[in-house]
């Protein structure tokens, strides 16, 4: 009651209010980020070490999530897998959104033939189903980790471009842009200082959604055996490795899938529960 009257501006920097679901989702995301960073320090067993004489062992006090198809500790492997799933996806989404947003803003401000060509070409790329695109490119360039990052970022650049362009076109018609043009500002200045700050919120929300798509596609590719290759293993690859344990209901199949689900659902819920202020300057 009192604090709403004492301060004129209800929110300061980072002072956004999240609801409960948003907080929980944010907590899970931060948890996985922490795991990805500190994985080598916190894993209870080495990921290559065979610690169980039985394969697809059950959950126990020593092996929290049971053992995998060779008798390795699946809990440690999931913690280490977080590095690959999160790392590759984060790198790919950063590249995709950076290039997509940069191109989108440029196209919106420059207009004319540049806009037409870029939009036509990237829309065409957008109409290749993402999983199929992934398969074709992996067939051509193989699935080393840099190649995967490159492939994933190329696949998701057109979507980021389309989203950013739609937002930037709206902002571009505002009076302050006209003023900036009359003032004689050049294109890079208008893009970086006039357009970008005004579309940043929705662009970041879009980045989160695209991150989910990338995690899902990477897991899918790894699940097909075309993503991250042994000896490394991300969560999708862990599911693939242990799929033979499915008839026994082995925890080694279930927990990597749950890890993926917990991450992607959390990101989606966080974005759904973002304060309107950040989210709702949408393309419409």
């Amino acid at each position, binding site marked *: 009651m009192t604090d709403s009257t004492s301060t004129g501006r209800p929110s300061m920097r980072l002072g956004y209010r999240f609801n409960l679901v948003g907080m929980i989702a944010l907590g899970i995301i931060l948890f996985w980020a922490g795991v990805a960073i500190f994985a080598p320090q916190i894993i209870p067993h080495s990921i290559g070490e065979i610690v169980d004489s039985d394969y697809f062992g059950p959950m126990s006090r020593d092996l929290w999530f049971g053992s995998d198809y060779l008798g390795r500790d699946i809990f440690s492997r999931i913690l280490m897998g977080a590095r690959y799933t999160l790392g590759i996806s984060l790198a790919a989404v950063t590249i995709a959104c950076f290039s997509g947003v940069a191109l989108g803003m440029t196209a919106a401000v420059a207009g004319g033939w540049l806009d037409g060509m870029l939009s036509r070409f990237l829309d065409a790329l957008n109409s290749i*189903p993402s*999983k199929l695109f992934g398969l074709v490119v992996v067939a051509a360039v193989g699935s080393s980790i840099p190649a995967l990052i490159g492939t994933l970022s190329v696949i998701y650049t057109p979507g980021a471009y389309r989203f950013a362009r739609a937002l930037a076109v709206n902002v571009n018609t505002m009076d302050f842009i006209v003023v900036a043009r009359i003032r004689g500002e050049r294109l890079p200045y208008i893009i970086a200082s006039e357009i970008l700050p005004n579309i940043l919120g929705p662009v970041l929300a879009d980045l989160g959604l695209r991150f989910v798509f990338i995690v899902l596609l990477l897991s899918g590719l790894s699940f*097909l055996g075309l993503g991250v290759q042994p000896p490394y293993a991300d969560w999708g690859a862990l599911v693939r490795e242990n799929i033979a344990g499915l008839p026994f209901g082995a925890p080694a199949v279930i927990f990597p899938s749950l890890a*993926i689900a917990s991450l992607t*659902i959390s990101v989606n819920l966080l974005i759904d529960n973002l304060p309107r202020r950040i989210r709702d300057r949408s393309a419409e």
Partner: protein
Amino acid sequence: MKKQVSLLVMKRLLIALITLVIVSFAVFSATALLPGDTATILLGQSATPEAVEGLRQAMHLNDPAIIRFLRWIAGLFQGDFGKSYANNVPVASLISGRFVNTMKLAGLTASIAVPFALTLGITSAMWRGTMYDRIVTIATIGIISVPEFMTATLAVLLFAVYLKWLPALSLTNEIKSFHDLLRIYAMPVMTLTFGVSAQMIRMTRAAVVETLNTPYVEMALLKGASPPRLVLRHALPNALGPIVNAVALSLSYLLGGVIIVETIFNYPGVAKLMVDAVSTRDLPLIQTCAMIFCLGYLALITAADIVAVLSNPRLR
């Protein structure tokens, strides 16, 4: 005024055609221009340079890329898809049987998913804000955020491992009765239906909610129309375009889902063929499968666009 619509439709079709050319070029260049010399791959590491050169000549690999691209496109138009590298069989004969299988799977899924999703989507929009609506919304977000292979593995776990109702693998040549057919198709279709429906429910709900928020629906409410009449007579006819659009767009999601589902259930369709072709780097097979999928996808999204144009009375 009619002329304007047909002009718009023609324009959409033309855009689809241009897109198809760009897509086919992308598919061709991704598979053919990037590293990995086909002749060396085919003959193996121990081949002599002369043998490799001979094969390159025979396969026209020394021609400029643009010529090879045009030759490939011309082949596609004449129904000549080339020969599979892996077993030297024409691609067309490899694909034809499997294409029918995939279409069966997709058709069955669509015939279940569309009525199911429309019912849930429309009812949750009608009762928006209620417990029912929130459960549907949370469930659809959950399903969309989860990879298809997880829905599939959970389905196997539940129905084949714990309940023992269904077999874990599908092998279509073992079908002897209608009962077998049901048992084999049940799980792949169920997994696909989940994913497709989740998308469709979300989009349908959004389309109907948008119509329900319009002034003329409020007017109908104020004059005392009953809720079913409100939705069926006033809202739905106007939401029809966006709904059909949503259906077509969600069905395109089938194409991605089918890749995972055919692999996990070992279903002999085009997608499984393509995944196997990627592991063996069988380029002609990959190219043809990719073109089939892109064509299907493009057809669906173009149909969605055209429906959106046709259903807008302001354009008619």
